[in-house]
């Protein structure tokens, strides 16, 4: 029997500034009925471009140069645009990464689903309101009767993604393309969505084409795996075959770089000398944003972004602050540095620290692309803080310090005269770290420093951070949503939920023996592979 979808020798290029740049080069793969096929790769590997090519929805600049895309023997690249419309949304359903932008903001959920029904369903039930309701029930949405008339902005992120799935299912597709379906979602929501996709696949028997960068998800979901890198498919194999030991070096490095919970037991813990005064103690630290209403804008309440937090960070310690999006962890970090006004409570820094906060506490942000002024050279970026905080330093000593920091974070001293846009994401994050360390801080607040980076780059940055901590005797407040990363770097962990700290403790204790239900919930949501339970055969000889 033939395959459901077969892609042969597909090549796609993008026109950039008059030059054709290849995005996908001569790839071939197939998807069978009822199976889950995972296409794994890092950002820019060409995996999303492949999916859009199958739907013939490439942006204007993209061109399919050659190849065949056969669905049940019909080459989709040769059918007319009109009959392509019966495939899109009909035989092939799609879910995109970010449900907050992928839904039309001015149409209700019901309208958007009915649109699919009107095109693809030929029997009488297409205009029946029960049909929409059934779809919404199928994807596990609550209060479906009111949900039908809701607008996307009234739903949570997870609910929006469920609506996207309902929309994709409305045309009763044979193939569902899920392009990074959970990347924009919190880890607990991610687990629910994956579970839903699995359940629906079993119910309907459709094929699922999962596009992701996360091997944990692949391990949990896929029957077969293909690894994509720089426009090429490096290897394809079955689930068992792949996780037993990937054939290609690149796949192995991906698998190895993935942060796992068990890692917290494998690495040496920090020796605590015990008598040190803590670097920073917070008591009842709060930050409330007033809610104003009415004619005179009276304050009627407050949004408690940070609510009575008490914490301590020891000298040379890494404290991980873990929580889902919106729990207030970033707000806490910024308020600590005085970047947000209105904080209350006690903040006690160690006695030997003099001067004002910027001279001993610094911050590294999540997005290395937004964290540097594009109009300044790397040298200017790094020296900016020294100029403001160490006005007594001479020009040459600033320059020397700048070169020193660049080398310390693994770049060249000569990079000083280049501009940020000439560097990759990982390199930019190194520059940001250099900028923070140049003013000789004692505490560095790392606000999701690796979330915007690919897994392999993330591993390097984490290693660099560990190394720098030893070398300069730093303390870190490591803000993250990723428990795997916590296991890699943290000495102690504080779990934050709705502005409050619900659990603190040594990293091994919190991750392996959590006391609080919320912490357990976070851990259970992780794909099994992220636990580190899956041992790689032959892992030993490679290390």
């Amino acid at each position, binding site marked *: 029997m033939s395959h459901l979808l077969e892609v042969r020798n597909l090549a796609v290029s993008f026109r950039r500034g008059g030059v054709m740049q290849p995005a996908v080069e001569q790839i071939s793969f197939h998807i069978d009925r009822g199976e889950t096929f995972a296409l794994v790769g890092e950002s820019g590997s060409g995996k999303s471009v492949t999916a859009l090519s199958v*739907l013939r*929805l490439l942006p*204007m600049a993209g061109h399919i140069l050659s190849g065949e895309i056969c669905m049940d023997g019909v080459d989709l690249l040769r059918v007319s*645009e*009109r009959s392509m*419309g*019966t*495939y*899109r*949304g*009909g035989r092939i359903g*799609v879910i*995109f990464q*970010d449900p907050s*932008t*992928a*839904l*039309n*903001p*001015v*149409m209700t959920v019901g309208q958007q689903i009915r*649109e*699919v029904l009107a*095109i*693809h369903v030929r029997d009488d039930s297409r205009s029946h309101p029960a049909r929409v309701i059934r779809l919404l029930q199928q994807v596990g949405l609550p209060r479906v009767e009111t949900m039908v008339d809701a*607008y996307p*902005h009234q739903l949570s992120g997870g609910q929006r993604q469920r609506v*996207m799935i309902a*929309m994709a299912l409305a*045309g009763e597709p044979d193939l569902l393309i899920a392009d990074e379906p959970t990347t924009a979602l919190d880890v607990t929501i991610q687990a629910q969505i994956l579970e839903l996709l699995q359940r629906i696949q079993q119910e309907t028997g459709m094929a699922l084409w999962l596009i992701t960068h996360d091997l944990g998800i692949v391990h949990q979901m896929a029957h077969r795996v293909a690894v994509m890198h720089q426009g090429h498919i490096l290897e394809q194999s079955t689930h068992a075959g792949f996780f037993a030991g990937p054939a290609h070096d690149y796949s192995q490095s991906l698998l190895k770089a993935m942060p796992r919970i068990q890692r917290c037991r494998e690495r040496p813990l920090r020796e605590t000398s015990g008598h040190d005064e803590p670097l920073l103690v917070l008591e009842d630290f709060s930050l409330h944003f007033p809610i104003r*209403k*009415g*004619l005179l804008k009276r304050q009627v309440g407050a949004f408690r972004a940070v609510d009575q937090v008490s914490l301590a960070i020891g000298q040379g310690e890494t404290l991980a602050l873990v929580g889902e999006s919106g729990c207030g962890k970033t707000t806490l970090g910024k308020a600590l540095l005085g970047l947000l006004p209105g904080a209350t409570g006690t903040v006690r820094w160690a006695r030997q620290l003099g001067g004002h906060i910027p001279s001993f506490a610094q911050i590294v942000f999540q997005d290395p692309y937004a964290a540097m002024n594009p109009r300044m050279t790397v040298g200017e970026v790094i020296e900016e803080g020294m100029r403001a905080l160490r006005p007594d330093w001479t020009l040459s000593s600033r320059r020397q310090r700048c070169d020193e920091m660049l080398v310390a974070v693994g770049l060249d001293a000569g990079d000083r005269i280049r501009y940020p846009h000439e560097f990759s994401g990982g390199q930019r994050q190194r520059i940001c770290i250099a900028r923070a360390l140049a003013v000789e801080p004692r505490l560095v607040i790392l606000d999701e420093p690796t979330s915007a980076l690919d897994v392999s780059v993330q591993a390097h940055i984490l290693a660099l951070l560990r190394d720098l901590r030893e070398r300069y005797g730093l303390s870190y407040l490591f803000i993250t949503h990723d428990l795997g990363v916590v296991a890699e770097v943290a000495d102690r962990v504080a779990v934050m939920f709705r502005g409050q700290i619900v659990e603190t403790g040594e990293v091994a204790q919190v991750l392996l023996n959590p006391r609080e239900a919320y912490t357990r919930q976070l851990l259970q949501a992780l794909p099994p592979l992220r636990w580190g339970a899956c041992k790689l055969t032959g892992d030993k000889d490679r290390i």
Partner: protein
Amino acid sequence: MMTYLVRRMLYALPLLVGVNILTFMLFFVVNTPEDMARMHLGQKHVTPEAIQQWTHERGYDQPLFFNGGEAGSKVLTETVFYQKSVGLFLFRFGRSDAGRDIKADIRQRMWPSLAIAVPSLVIGLLVNISAALLLIFFRLTWMEFWGSALCVALMSVSSLFYIIGGQYLLGRLWQLAPISGYADGMEAFRFLLLPVLLSVVAGIGSGARWYRALFLEEVERDYVRTARAKGLSEAAALFRHVLRNAMIPILTGVVVILPLLFIGSLITESFFAIPGLGSYTIDAIGQQDFAVVRAMVFLGSVLYILGLLLTDISYTLVDPRVRLE
């Protein structure tokens, strides 16, 4: 919603006060009423008595802010500021410098203004949106290139040339419509044809380009890709999804000028000799009738602020994401 509206109304008050003080400064403080009188009566050979009579007839001979010669509340009310500026808040426009009742003039002249401005706006909107949709539908083809080039060329021509050229070609050469003038009732239609047509044509270039930019911004959004991934054709995605979202900035941009339609278009009305508020203002400027100009400045500001308020309300009607709090 209600509290929001009340608050916005209250916010409009300081704005109006600001406008009022600004115009008062312009008209009475920078130049004294004597200057105006001298200007009206001719620069030379003017006797002080004539000036005094002119200012007295028009009530400009009182003190500006504070009348020491009076008692009680009259200290403040018997002043130019109170008489000429505060009255505007109650829409007491008073008499023009030529002695006409401004309010009656406005009442009478706003209808011809509306008769021109409303069809021009509606037809112009339809034409511009259709042209922009066509440009978007044929994007990245030669149609779009030459269409956009035509738009740039059209918007590089001064509106005066559209009017002069149109009057000459359609009115004089081909005799399709009267060149200028106005009549009441159904008769007005003949006279409105040319000005409406020309103001629509004059606006196509910049209008179509502006709407095209709005559409382009929407076309690249993720939800349009979703719509096409659902199986919608290019045209359906354009009409049902892009147009609906782009209508938000378009509508709100139109709403803000809706109240201003009352005061009409200065240029069109005076070229076509339409007895509306636009030509009223132009005439007042020409005859240097400060009372009328002052009244029109205030009226225009009130209508603009009303437009801002209507814009906010229209947002809640067309955009489900916006709630007035």
